[in-house]
């Protein structure tokens, strides 16, 4: 029975035997109350994690950024004092702005109300404010399929690539980005197994961590590739510092690679134990351009080329002339070669026998836990101490440099401020005059219009009053006339008057 089937059987057995207690549980829960959360202080210790590789990487990255700061600071210092970039720079002179812009970009901007003074100068800081975010390292997996995986300092996969067609088939159904490296390796190992690799004890898996790949990604757009002078951090207008790996940096890279390799080997060993406990895993850290060129020449992966070179170095049988012949062998054959020639001691190798031997396993996994953590901490502290010495040497120079530059900036800022204030005053006065003129015009215009309106209204009012008076008089006269006609004296009404008409009518009626 295959392990997969056995796992399914175990799962199904437990699953089928599990009683349905949901209703009982709900009923029981109704009788209890949820406890309130603990105060924050009480949960702090619980939140503490045993070991975070990211912390190590962050320490190391910070240390490296300090080195960059030192290099940059030194370059600027040289520029300010001699007008040319340090002769350490193989690029020779580099055109930079005449103002000390690079180091004063952190100075608070001058304002008309409060121009900065030298006493307000912020505490000297390294020339770059960029903070390290992630440390990315690449490693290669070679079985025959060859895969490159890039991991961040929290051991999650940032990217990955199939380096040959066999690997493309292995990765075709996988999505590894963002996964924990353990889970990613798990998927890869399972996929390799499903595609017919890693089937027996003679199969070999090669894990190669590339020291040169170590990259510190920063929070801004810049990428500080410590090992590659062609890629430098984007730090305002600072001349490109020429970064070549120092002794400390190289040591750091080696340690980081070995740390990662230790992690990966632990993970792979744990995973392989589940799948094919018998097969062999070889771990190595690689560096240098030579191996990459030779890998290209021989049309093999970099990891495999390094493995071949290691075999040649540790064996009396082969020489560099055999590279081409050896390159034709599969990883499996090369692994067998190492074991058959008794060269295991030259390699970081775990085979099936080791895996089945508990004591040996303990040794293999000795990187786990506090010992490992402490070792890394010591390494980091050591690196930091070495770098600190250099930082201390340069710190005073940087400090003076910043102060000088700040003073210059302040002087410049004060001049600019005064000019700006004069300019603003001139413009303000002009605007005020303009506004006053305009206001007076408007007032005059308004007065004119108002007077015209008042005159018009008066005219109309008088006309209306006159008209009304005339009309009133006419009405009064008319009423008076009528009143006199009806009631006035004893005067007989005219025959054609209404009164005469009525009298005539009555007379006519009664006389009939």
């Amino acid at each position, binding site marked *: 029975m295959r392990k*997969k089937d056995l*796992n399914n059987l175990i*799962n199904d057995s437990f699953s*089928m*035997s599990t009683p349905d*207690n949901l209703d009982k549980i*709900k009923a029981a829960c109704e009788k209890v109350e949820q406890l309130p959360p603990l105060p924050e202080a009480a949960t702090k210790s619980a939140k503490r994690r045993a070991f975070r590789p990211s912390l190590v990487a962050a320490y190391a990255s910070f240390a490296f950024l300090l080195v960059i700061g030192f290099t940059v600071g030194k370059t600027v210092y040289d520029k300010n004092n001699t007008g040319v970039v340090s002769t350490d720079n193989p690029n020779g002179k580099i055109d930079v702005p005449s103002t000390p812009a690079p180091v004063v970009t952190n100075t608070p901007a001058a304002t008309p109300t409060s121009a900065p003074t030298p006493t307000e100068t912020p505490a000297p800081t390294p020339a770059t404010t960029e903070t390290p975010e992630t440390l990315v390292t690449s490693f290669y997996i070679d079985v025959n399929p060859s895969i490159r995986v890039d991991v961040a300092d929290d051991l999650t996969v940032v990217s990955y690539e199939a380096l040959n067609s066999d690997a493309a088939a292995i990765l075709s159904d996988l999505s590894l980005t963002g996964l924990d490296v353990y889970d990613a390796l798990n998927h890869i190992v399972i996929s390799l197994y499903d595609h017919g690799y890693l089937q027996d004890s003679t199969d070999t898996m090669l894990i190669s961590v590339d020291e040169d790949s170590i990259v510190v990604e920063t929070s801004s757009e810049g990428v500080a590739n410590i090992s590659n002078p062609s890629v430098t951090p984007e730090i305002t207008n600072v001349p490109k510092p020429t970064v070549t790996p120092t002794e400390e940096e190289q040591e750091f890279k080696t340690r980081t690679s070995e740390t990662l390799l230790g992690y990966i080997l632990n993970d792979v060993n*744990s995973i392989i134990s589940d799948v094919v406990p018998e097969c062999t895993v070889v771990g190595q850290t690689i560096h240098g351009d030579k191996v990459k060129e030779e890998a290209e020449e021989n049309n093999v992966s970099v990891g495999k080329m390094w493995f071949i070179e290691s075999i040649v170095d540790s064996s009396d049988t082969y020489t560099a002339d055999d590279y081409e012949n050896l390159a034709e062998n599969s990883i499996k054959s090369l692994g067998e070669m190492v074991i058959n020639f008794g060269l295991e001691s030259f390699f970081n190798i775990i085979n099936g026998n080791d895996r089945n031997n508990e004591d040996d396993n303990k040794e293999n996994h000795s990187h786990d836990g506090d010992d490992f953590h402490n070792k890394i901490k010591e390494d980091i502290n050591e690196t930091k101490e070495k770098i600190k010495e250099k930082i201390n040497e340069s710190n005073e120079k940087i400090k003076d440099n910043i102060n000088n530059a700040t003073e210059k900036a302040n002087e410049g800022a004060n001049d600019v401020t005064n000019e700006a204030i004069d300019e603003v005053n001139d413009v303000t006065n002009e605007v005020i005059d303009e506004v006053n003129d305009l206001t007076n015009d408007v007032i005059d215009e308004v007065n004119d219009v108002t007077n015209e309106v008042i005159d018009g209204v008066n005219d109309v009012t008088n006309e209306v009053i006159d008209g009304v008076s005339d009309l009133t008089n006419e009405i009064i006269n008319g009423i008076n006339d009528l009143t006199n006609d009806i009631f006035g004296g004893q005067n007989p009404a005219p025959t054609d008057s209404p009164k005469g008409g009525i009298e005539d009518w009555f007379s006519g009626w009664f006389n009939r």
Partner: protein
Amino acid sequence: MLQSLDKIKKNKKVEKAILLMAEKGMDAMDELYSLISSDVYAFALSKVGNPHDADDIMQDTFVQIYRYAKRYVPEGKPLAWVFTIITNLANQRFRDNTKNDYLEDRVVEPADEKDFSESFINNEFLKDLLNTLANDEKEIIVMHVVSGMKHREIADFTGQPLSTVLSKYNRAMKKLQVRAKEVE
């Protein structure tokens, strides 16, 4: 157990359900139960060794999860938290059940090898598993195969070296493979 994507996602789902339970109480119980009831029962069974006690512990575990949900600190290891509750409950139960000095000395080894042929377990293979494996082997198998915990996590949880966990796991799987072949 080859760790599938489902297993990887499971941890996140369980953690989410516990946090939801802290926020909304019983509303999250159905979801959490569907996610981990098998894990809880299997681990309880591996701890106490009989289905009766495992059943009780399973219920008590969910009640405790409900009760302490607001105190759960999300660290991405919810199953380890749940298994700690089960371990405590199993030890407590064992202490309650043991009345004599002889048994009191064995608190750290709550379940001894028992014959399950007369138990309530109907599944023949499960009976074999429980009868064949040692207690710590059962626990490791359950944690790895049923719950999908990584060997490294199991080593952290049990306080054993990773290599020991790996060998116990391999030994247990070999035993089960032999039993499975015999049954076939």
